[in-house]
Structure formats: structure tokens, C-alpha cells
């Protein structure tokens, strides 16, 4: 195993592959992708449903197809990658310790590192649901792995807590494979999933979606025998008078995704409190020089197409970093009003057109997205609907950034 590399990419999912391809196309030749799974593709491998790729490829692809296209691009370019390889440590000098069967534990010093480790699901423990701890409680993604990768059914009568897209998708998958999905409960007054998934995954199969509802207790000693479900008040506290028992053998949890930033923290990269991902500039470079972050490890995306897009940006940035290039340096902070929960990037260091991704905290109708410099409104865009489940973007113009050097641009949602 060689001991140095120009660009090391941690994670061979959609983000890592796209970053690698972009960096290669920008001239970087000494690249290595480290992937913990047996194949490139990441979580897309188990997302066998369609709906991916409309933006990126102009057609609707399944997860394996989307991953396959990028894997093919990686292979065409003969970009080196190691599967079944787990990165154990990363330090601020970009020294990576990894492990696989062929090389055992080994270290590589990288001139640049792109973090593309993805995210994981929020487990039951983090939700604090009371009751017993029987078999039959799965995160939606784990159930998806059992059904789609292993060919086993986790249960027959299912209640799903959380209406994130994976939960909705699994409601349909389990139904098609012969299970009965009795209810989907969502703590919030709106679903975090895409409207089309509510339509085609729940409504198509007459699966009820209970908004402002939660699971308050899990029953069953060995296997789940049922759950207690209750409506919640505006403070998200269960209203005990509404509690009712739903018999089921399975509880699926689709209650949010958490970027997997353990390595990031080890390398001393500061994280954003809201996204749980690294604080990055417009190049997706973190506060530690030469370490970049992209995809769901940076912030949870709604569509893989945007993951690829962002990762390509990180790949290009890493290539420029390796060439020692940089544009005119400025310092512009991006501030949010709370209704805009976060922005990626959090700050801008170059005067050029910059696309900013953000998410909102609530459902807003007939609202305007505003970008201001002090009292001056630079942009005011009308939106019929803004929802927390969907990522939004605005593009900051070079001249605004020039003007804002040393100051902050503020992002706000304005409603009537």
C-alpha cells in the first residue's frame, strides 16, 4: 500500500464517487476512494425504488442504476478505490488510518481529503419512546436492508413512526412484499417526506398518515405486539386522552438522519450545530485546510442529484486546492433568521457566483425568500410553498459578495 496520495476520498457512495469523478476531470490523477462496504454505491444500493436522477441524468433511475452510472464513471477513469475498507482515524494533518483484509491497518498521508461518509438514521434510543425493548423495532433503513438486500421480511403488521422519505418508501415496499402497514405517525403537523411519496407510497395503498401523532409506548416482551399511539399538542406533548393501542409486530422508525461526522470531529473540524455537518465555505472546504466535505455527511439532502452536484463542487475545489489556486479572497458570513434553519455554505471566501443551499424550519405558504445586506434587499423571491423536507437554493451574485466583503448577508423568510 502506498503511503501518500494527492486526494483521498472517504466514502464511495454517490458523494464520494461524484467528487472523485469531478476531481479527476479537473486534472487530479492521484486519487484513492476508501469505501467500507463491499461495493461502491453506498446506501443507493438498497434504495431499489425509482425517483433518482431526474436532475442529473434527465431520466428517472432506481438507486442501483444511479449508483451504477457513477461507478461506471469511476471505473472508466480508472480511479483507484478500495472496498471493504474502513477508515479508522483521520487527523488534522490529513493522515488517514484505515483497515482492510488485504493490508491490515495502514496509514496514508493525503494532500487533500474529501469527507463523503453519508449519514445514519436516528435510532429508537434517541427518541426516548417508553415501554419494552422487544424484537421488531427497526429503523426504516435497516428494514430496507433486510427486504431489499437480504430478501427477508422484518414483519407482517407494521406501524411506522416518522414520515421521512425512507419511511414512506418502506411503507410501499413492505406492502408490495405482503405486509400490512397500519399507520404512519408523524410528530409534526406536516410530513418531512416528498408530497409525491405520500401520494404513491401511502395514498395508493390506503395507508393512513396521522400528522401530529407519535408512538408513546412499545408493547411486547419478545416480539412487538403493538404500540400506543397518541395525538400531540402544539408543544409536541402526547395528549393522553387520545392514546390508543394499535396491534402490530413491527415498528419502523423514520425519524431523521444524522450526518456521520465522527472522523470529522477527530480531525478537529468544527461542526455546524444545526446541520451536524462541518462548517464549510463555498468550496465545501472545512476550517481545516485541505479537508473538504460534501453530500449527506455535510448536510442531509433531499435528492441524491444534489448530493452529486455538491460533491462535484467539492471535487473541483479539491483539485484547485491541490493546484494551489485560489480566487480573490473575501470574507462574507451568511446569517439565518431561524426560519431559514441553516445555509450551506456558512460563509463565502471568494467573490464569484455562489449557490447556497438552505432549509426552512416550518411550512410557509405565499412567502418570500430574502437575502439582505444590512437594510438593502439584494434578492426577494416569491415562493408558493416552502417546506422543511425540501432543500432550497439561491445563487448569490459576485457583485453582492464583493459589496458584502467583511460583512454578513442575512437570509430570511418573509410572510404576509
Amino acid at each position, binding site marked *: 500500500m502506498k503511503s501518500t496520495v494527492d486526494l483521498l476520498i472517504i466514502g464511495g457512495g454517490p458523494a464520494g464517487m461524484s467528487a472523485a469523478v469531478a476531481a479527476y476531470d479537473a486534472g487530479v490523477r492521484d486519487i484513492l476512494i476508501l469505501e467500507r462496504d463491499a*461495493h461502491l454505491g453506498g446506501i443507493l*444500493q438498497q434504495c*431499489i*425504488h*425509482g*425517483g433518482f436522477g*431526474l436532475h442529473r441524468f434527465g431520466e*428517472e*433511475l*432506481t*438507486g*442501483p*442504476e444511479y449508483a*451504477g452510472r457513477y461507478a461506471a464513471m469511476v471505473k472508466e477513469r480508472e480511479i483507484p478505490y478500495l472496498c471493504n475498507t474502513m477508515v479508522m482515524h483521520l487527523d488534522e494533518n490529513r493522515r488517514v488510518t484505515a483497515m482492510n483484509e488485504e493490508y491490515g491497518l495502514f496509514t496514508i498521508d493525503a494532500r487533500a481529503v474529501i469527507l463523503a461518509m453519508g449519514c445514519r438514521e436516528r435510532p429508537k434510543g434517541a427518541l426516548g419512546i417508553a415501554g419494552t425493548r422487544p424484537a421488531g423495532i427497526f429503523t426504516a433503513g435497516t428494514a430496507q436492508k433486510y427486504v*431489499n*438486500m*437480504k*430478501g427477508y421480511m422484518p414483519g407482517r403488521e407494521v406501524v411506522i413512526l416518522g414520515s421521512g422519505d425512507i419511511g414512506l418508501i418502506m411503507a410501499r415496499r413492505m406492502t*408490495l*412484499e*405482503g405486509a400490512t402497514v397500519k399507520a404512519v405517525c408523524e410528530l409534526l403537523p406536516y410530513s418531512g417526506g*416528498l*408530497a*409525491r411519496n*405520500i*401520494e*404513491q407510497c401511502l395514498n*395508493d395503498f390506503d395507508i393512513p398518515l396521522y400528522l401530529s401523532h407519535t408512538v408513546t409506548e412499545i408493547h411486547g416482551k419478545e416480539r412487538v405486539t403493538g404500540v400506543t399511539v397518541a395525538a400531540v399538542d402544539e408543544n409536541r406533548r402526547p395528549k393522553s386522552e387520545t392514546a390508543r393501542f394499535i396491534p402490530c409486530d413491527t415498528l419502523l422508525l423514520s425519524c431523521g438522519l444524522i450526518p456521520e461526522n465522527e472522523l470529522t470531529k477527530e480531525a478537529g473540524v468544527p461542526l455546524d450545530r444545526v446541520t451536524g455537518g462541518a462548517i464549510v465555505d463555498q468550496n465545501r472546504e472545512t476550517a481545516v485546510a485541505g479537508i473538504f466535505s460534501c453530500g449527506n455527511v455535510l448536510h442531509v439532502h*433531499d*435528492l441524491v442529484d444534489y448530493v452529486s452536484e455538491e460533491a462535484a463542487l467539492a471535487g473541483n475545489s479539491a483539485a484547485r486546492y491541490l493546484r494551489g489556486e485560489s480566487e480573490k479572497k473575501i470574507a462574507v458570513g451568511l446569517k439565518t433568521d431561524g426560519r431559514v434553519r441553516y445555509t450551506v455554505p456558512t460563509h463565502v471566501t471568494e467573490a464569484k457566483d455562489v449557490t447556497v443551499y438552505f432549509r426552512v424550519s416550518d411550512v410557509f405558504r405565499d412567502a418570500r425568500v430574502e437575502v439582505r445586506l444590512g437594510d438593502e434587499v439584494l434578492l426577494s423571491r416569491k415562493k408558493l410553498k416552502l417546506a422543511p423536507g425540501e432543500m432550497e437554493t439561491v445563487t448569490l451574485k459576485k457583485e453582492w459578495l464583493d459589496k458584502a466583503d467583511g460583512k454578513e448577508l442575512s437570509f430570511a423568510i418573509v410572510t404576509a
Partner: protein
Amino acid sequence: MTRNLTCIVCPRGCEMTVLLDENKKFLSAEGNACPRGLSYAESECTAPVRSLASTVLTESGKLLPVKSASPIPKGKLFDAMREIRVALAPDTLCVGDVVLADLAGTGVALVATANAADL
């Protein structure tokens, strides 16, 4: 009469209002951001179809992801699943190769979405 629909063609999920005549025949729709929404609305009000994705066993016992090559009638989803459940795919199949030529009598093929050799 009118009917409310959520478009499922793309992740945008446009909320549409569809105008139907007294025979529930499609007349027009609004709320769609693109022409594909319009054709979705018409199809949804006439003969709704859905894409289907699942897995089939390969001869060596692997699990191959598959999809319907195009959407099939919504009412045929479970019939299609019954065929998919017992289908067996050769381990030589590649992305796009046909697993079942005529899924549940719909005339639509079931195709592989991964290379069996890469599983």
C-alpha cells in the same frame, strides 16, 4: 367536477386541480409546473399507472434489483408482485436486461437495475 391531485412525476410534487366532465372524463388541469404534469393528470384520471420496483432471486440465490421498464396499470401491481416473487433470473443479467418479458399481462417487461455479477 374537479379533483385534486399531487403530481408524482418528479420530486417537486405539484398540487394540481383537475377538471373532469360529467362522465369523469379529463378536461383540463392546473397547478402543474410542466407539461409532464398535464399528461400525468390525464393518465391518472383515465387509467392510472405506476412504476414498480422490487427484487428477484437469481439462480445462485442472490437478490437482483428490478423494475418495470415503464409504468404498469396501478391495479396490476399485486399481480405483478406475485410473478416477481417466484421469478428466477440468470446470474448473467446486466442493467436493463429483461427478467420477465410481460409482467402480469401488461405487456411491460421487468428489467434488471443492477448487474447480477456485481452483487
